[in-house]
């Protein structure tokens, strides 16, 4: 079995799928730290649907679907950013409206598309085995930018995650960090349409961060654990999908859920919280 697996890795499409899995896991997991700690899971949903809707529209108009997906993400970010800053509208409502609007747009596009529905469906689930070299290049580039962003602005990011308003009040460029983040979310989501697809990517934008939340109080470790669990889910999902002949996107998402469940059950943070509660009662 193991030999067979190693054999398989000599095929270029499988190699590419493997590299893409690592990159997809890492980039989505880094973003998931922000999605989870800023409590904005709906941003992930909206962005992934924006990318999907944009890609479908791109197919309709004969534009590169990933480019149109990215443009749609940027447009969504440009609307979401200022709207969620306003105090007279709850961000959840704004996001809910955006999300359903984009979904409607995507399905409208799917309905109008006559011939190439299969391609559009691929954007929903992803197709790891049909990736090209340039797909990998784009993915690596975007992942590298994201890693650089986190490393260079770590202390500002910590302040903004802690409290955006306080950060802004004390001279930290909170807006710059926030909008860079939205921009990078758009880039990651649209470049991963080809790997895990527009629907399933949402799981990877939440679960690695939620896993890390169970395990550490240290923000550095938080990023590392999140990336490890994201990459772990993607790679183990890919292998499982090969061995058991399952759809790869679904296997990846299920693996991410299993990792989260394990972290939740064995969470040292939850245990200390429980102990404290007991002490309190005594």
């Amino acid at each position, binding site marked *: 079995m193991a030999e067979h697996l190693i054999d398989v890795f000599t095929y270029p499409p499988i190699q590419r799928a493997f590299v893409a899995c690592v990159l997809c896991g890492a980039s989505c997991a880094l973003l998931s730290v922000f999605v989870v*700690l800023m409590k904005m899971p709906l941003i992930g949903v909206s962005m992934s649907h924006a990318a999907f809707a944009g890609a479908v529209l791109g197919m309709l108009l004969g534009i590169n679907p990933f480019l149109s997906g990215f443009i749609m993400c940027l447009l969504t970010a440009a609307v979401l950013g200022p709207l969620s800053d306003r105090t*007279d509208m709850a961000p959840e409502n704004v996001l809910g409206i955006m999300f359903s609007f984009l979904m409607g747009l995507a399905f409208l596009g799917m309905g109008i598309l006559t011939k190439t529905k299969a391609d559009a469906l691929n954007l929903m689930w992803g197709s790891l085995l049909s990736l090209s070299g340039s797909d990998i290049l784009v993915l690596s580039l975007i992942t590298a930018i994201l890693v650089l962003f986190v490393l*260079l*602005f770590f*202390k*500002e990011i*910590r*302040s903004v*995650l*802690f*409290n955006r*308003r*306080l*950060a*802004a*009040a*004390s*001279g*930290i*460029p909170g807006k710059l960090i926030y909008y860079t983040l939205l921009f990078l979310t758009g880039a990651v989501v649209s470049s991963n349409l080809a790997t895990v697809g527009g629907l399933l990517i949402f799981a990877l934008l939440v679960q690695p961060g939620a896993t*890390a*939340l*169970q395990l*550490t*109080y*240290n*923000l550095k*470790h*938080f990023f590392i654990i999140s990336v490890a669990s994201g990459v772990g889910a993607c790679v183990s999902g890919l292998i499982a999908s090969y061995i058991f002949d399952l759809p790869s996107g679904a296997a990846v998402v299920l693996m991410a859920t299993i990792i989260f469940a394990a972290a939740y059950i064995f969470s040292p*943070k939850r245990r200390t*919280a429980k102990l*404290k509660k007991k002490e309190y009662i005594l």
Partner: protein
Amino acid sequence: MKQDCLYGRAMSKQIIELEGVTVRKSGGLLLDGISISMSSREFVGIIGPNGAGKTTLLNVIAGFEKFEGTLSLFGQRESWKRSRETRLRIGYVPQLFQIDPAFPILASEAVMTGSIGRLGLFRSPGRQEKEKTMQLMEMMRVAHLADRPLGQLSGGERQKVSLARAILQQPDILLMDEPTANLDIAVQKEVLNLISEIHKQEDLTILFVTHDFNLLPVAMRRAVLLDSGKTVFDGDIGIAMSSETLSRLFQYPLETFERNGRRFVSYG
């Protein structure tokens, strides 16, 4: 404690001046032509019922709110958009806010976020910042909690961390928005005493927003009473706290009494 020459500070000049400041929102007036000025090292209470415009006033000074009229800070006219330098000179202590108990930040790291703006991009907090952090945490009596996750501290402890964070920023003006709201009574008293201590030790102008006349720091000498977006009184705290003034302003019979040389309001 601070380098006074850093930004060319001028002592006992008017460092906050508002002239006819008005804030409109969804058709209503949140602030209606407010004119106040404050000099360096003053400790001013902004007091009034809910919806009087106290927080809006703080937001105008902090640069969170668009407004009409003129606002001068440190002798310079300012709009709601601020330079980083001006923001650095204004510290902010918010009301106790919710934080997820699992959130990955330690109490000392939360204090340290106060130094990030001053450090600027691409520079990490060094030994100096870390020492100052511990010093301030000691002053706020939370040094023993430095390595505890912030979300696991009590409300009072978190507010003390918030105070330490604001002072680490080394501001010239400190804005406080009901810093003792939602705390236990004994803890409220302790935090108020710490705030008076801060005013004594640090070279600061403090604006303290509250709706509770009985929970004022001892160091506060001047009160600005707000009602429906207007200034209804501006002067000595002792005069503000007389039965006549308060009953007239709030159109409700309020009695005040004196204990240990300070006046209190009887709501009963």
